[in-house]
């Protein structure tokens, strides 16, 4: 018996190396700069941050299978659709409802189980040489299905979560039927079979393959920053951002965020990490490294993001929580429309 105890202790030791004060993160949203942020947190609170990064779906499966024995506290991922799905699967628990969190994050971007850390908008990019202001006037997501864009639009595949969330918001606002016929319109407007990531869509417009593209805001800033090299910086300058739906509900917003896991062993530490991530110090760090929009008031985004324009109307009407709820419908309408 003694032997077994010793052996299991030994394995427990090599498997977790448990420290008294720590918080464990499963992260599907990987930024190199996150590590520096966590180091700041540790320096401030003495709580050590442990991270496993991986593919979102695999991490979720691991959380579910490990069940009560999962020692992770927070699940950090990009896209509200994923956090919503995690909540729906019962992977999360309430508890992210401290006064500090409530004060920092608008109601639209949180539930008690997960909370947005940073915002991004999914917008339209256009080539000013080929797209006139008149054509763009009053552009909405809905009007991307307009035949005038035939052969001029590029957008990612339907298996991309950002697209799924965008379409989910359309299902939520316009109903499944309308979304279905919209998807068919979009597919027929595509300049090419969907391929590549968001940045590839922007570059397709810069390279003249298409006139308009749908992509998230931070990609253009990333290119403009020169982090992707001089050519891409030049290419980014050939493309301009356009924020759709300014005359109605506003531009589609999404978040990267953190969910509190159901069996979190270090719940309090997890909450204080989230609170720290929502502090202005941390928010400054995040927006300057990821080119996202800050979640809290009083912090300015990266200058390149500011230059893209800040005074646009955000869609605060559609709760981001609905992206998870309508994800399946969104995928279905896209696939039925033949959206690869």
């Amino acid at each position, binding site marked *: 018996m003694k032997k077994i105890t010793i052996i*299991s202790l030994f*394995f*427990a030791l*090599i*498997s*977790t*190396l448990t420290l008294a004060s720590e918080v*464990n993160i499963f992260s599907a*949203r*990987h*930024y*190199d700069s996150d590590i520096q942020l966590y180091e700041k947190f540790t320096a401030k609170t003495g709580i050590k941050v*442990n*991270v*496993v*990064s*991986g*593919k979102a*779906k*695999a*991490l*979720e*499966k*691991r959380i579910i*299978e*490990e*069940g009560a*024995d999962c*020692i992770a506290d927070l699940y950090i991922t990009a896209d509200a659709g994923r956090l919503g799905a995690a909540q729906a*699967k019962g992977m999360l628990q309430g508890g992210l409802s401290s006064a500090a969190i409530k004060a920092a994050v608008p109601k639209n971007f949180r539930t008690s189980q997960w909370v947005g850390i940073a915002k991004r908008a999914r917008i339209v990019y256009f080539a000013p040489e080929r797209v006139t202001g008149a054509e763009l006037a009053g552009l909405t997501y809905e009007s991307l299905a307009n035949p005038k864009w035939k052969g001029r639009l590029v957008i990612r*595949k339907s*298996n*991309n979560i950002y697209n799924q969330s965008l379409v989910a918001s359309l299902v939520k606002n316009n109903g499944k039927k309308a979304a279905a016929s919209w998807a068919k319109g979009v597919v027929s407007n595509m300049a090419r079979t*969907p*391929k*590549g*990531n*968001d*940045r*590839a869509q922007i*570059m*397709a417009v*810069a*390279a*003249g*393959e298409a006139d308009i593209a749908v992509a998230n805001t931070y*990609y253009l800033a*990333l290119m403009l920053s020169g*982090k*992707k*090299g*001089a*050519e*891409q910086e*030049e*290419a980014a300058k050939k493309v301009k951002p356009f924020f759709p739906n300014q005359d109605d509900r506003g531009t589609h917003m999404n978040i990267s965020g953190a969910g509190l896991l159901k069996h979190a062993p270090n719940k309090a530490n997890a909450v204080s990490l989230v609170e720290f991530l929502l502090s202005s110090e941390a928010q400054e760090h995040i927006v300057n490294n990821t080119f996202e929009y800050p979640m809290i008031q009083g912090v300015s985004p990266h200058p390149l993001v500011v230059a893209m324009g800040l005074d646009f109307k955000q869609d605060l009407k559609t709760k981001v929580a609905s992206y998870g709820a309508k994800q*399946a419908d969104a995928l*279905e309408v896209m*696939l*039925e429309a033949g959206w690869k």
Partner: protein
Amino acid sequence: MLLKKIDIWYLSSFFISIIVAVPIITVFLSFFETTGNYSSILKDTFLYEYIFNSIILLFGVLLLTFIIGVGCAYIVSFYKFPGVNFFKWALILSFAVPAYIYAYSLTAFFENFGTAFSILKNLFGEGDYNSSIPKFDGMLGAIISISFSLFGYVYVLTRASFHYQSQNLIELGKNLGFSKKKSFFKIILPSARPAIVAGLSLVAMETLSDFGSVSFFGISTLTTGIYNAWISFDDLTLANRLSFFLLIFIFGLFILENFSRRKAQYHSLSKGGFKSKSVITLTGYKSLLAFSFCFFVFFISFLFPVLQMLYWTIIFPKHFIDLKITELFLNTILLVLLSSIVLILFAFISNYGNRVSKSKFLEALTTFSISGYAIPGIILAVAFITFISWFDNNIVRYFGINTIKSIFIGSILGLVLVYFVRFYSLASNGIKSGYLKINYSIDESSYLLGYSKFKTFTDVHIPYLKNSIFLIGILIAIEIIKELPITLIMRPFNFETFATTAYVFASQDLLEAAAAPSLLLIIIASIFILTTSRYILKD
């Protein structure tokens, strides 16, 4: 006494096979639970697309690896031209480049405003080059990435077959007055067929289990389909149907591989071809042609990704400086050492158990258990987690022990265990083919000289197989250095390797930052390959 002794070997062999087989069984058993949220129309759409894509991918890769692999093997085996001795080993360096890193390079080079664009701009000044640069993405990109990282299997096996090919066969061709072309198609190629088929079926299995590059290019194959259906939608019915098809593919290939390997063995064993062949010395444009073909393949398969990664590492040195190289190196080496030791030791025990017990059942079990090789790593890892969780909830709790999950999930132990399942066939087949060379009467001679089974194992088999062991150890090392999905899911907190670091950067669209760890990964794998090239090429 004898019975008791055999039982120890038998049992250990039995248990090793069972351990390896469990996750594989789990994958398929777990699909018999019925769930499913999606309409059947959608399922069929998925299903046909997945199968169609898998077939296109498979045939594309097989065609390309056949042309490259057999072509190179033929040229370096039968002709002499400047650089031929260099190419003989340089071509196997492609093993050091995992398909996903190849995919990164391919995209980075050919994308709009990518490296090709930069080169053209620097050479010819500003211009609209994007539309004239070919785009290797999507299916085409995946086929190229996988082919150039896997053609080595076909090359190595075919070359070995050519090497041992009896001189008589080639002279026979001349004798019959065949032209070179006719000799190649009528004599040389058919006699190397078992080796080629064995190489191609390895390529096919690796292609079917590829996850990194197909998901990078966003292609839905059976593997990504199972991953999505099972892991993200909990749709076991669809996962079940998909894995049924995958299973059919895999077993078909498995049978093919086994069959042709046996034949290949037969061929290589028939002696008489050991005479050094008279190679034809090429001159003039023919020599240039042969050189160009080999150089092209070497360049595209190895230099190209290395140069792309090197280029980025140089123009974005910050990422290289920030990299915790020592830590990544030590982590990688730790995994390599632990896994190779465990794999070789257990593969050895199991093979020896099979040998002394001569049990048909055990033999069949081993054959079944090594099919884990063909199951995509990412699915294997999740199956392992699922199994441990089931085992923990249903059996361990029953005995009143608290939990064993944390011992196996998110630990080095668990990681090594899944590597064990994934790469067991590599170790087991390697040792098995070593053992095939030891005539059974060698064992009997040793017994008759008074050596016990254990002493025979330690005094005869291990010294005899030490070269094989070394070679297998290195092959395992190369695989583990490149391995991504299992490491990603199974590793403990704060544990990074070159592969995971490269992935993490690549997944956030920072291929520039992924360059430094990728480059280091390729360099380390290359060093391992070079230390064993003489065994791999067996001159």
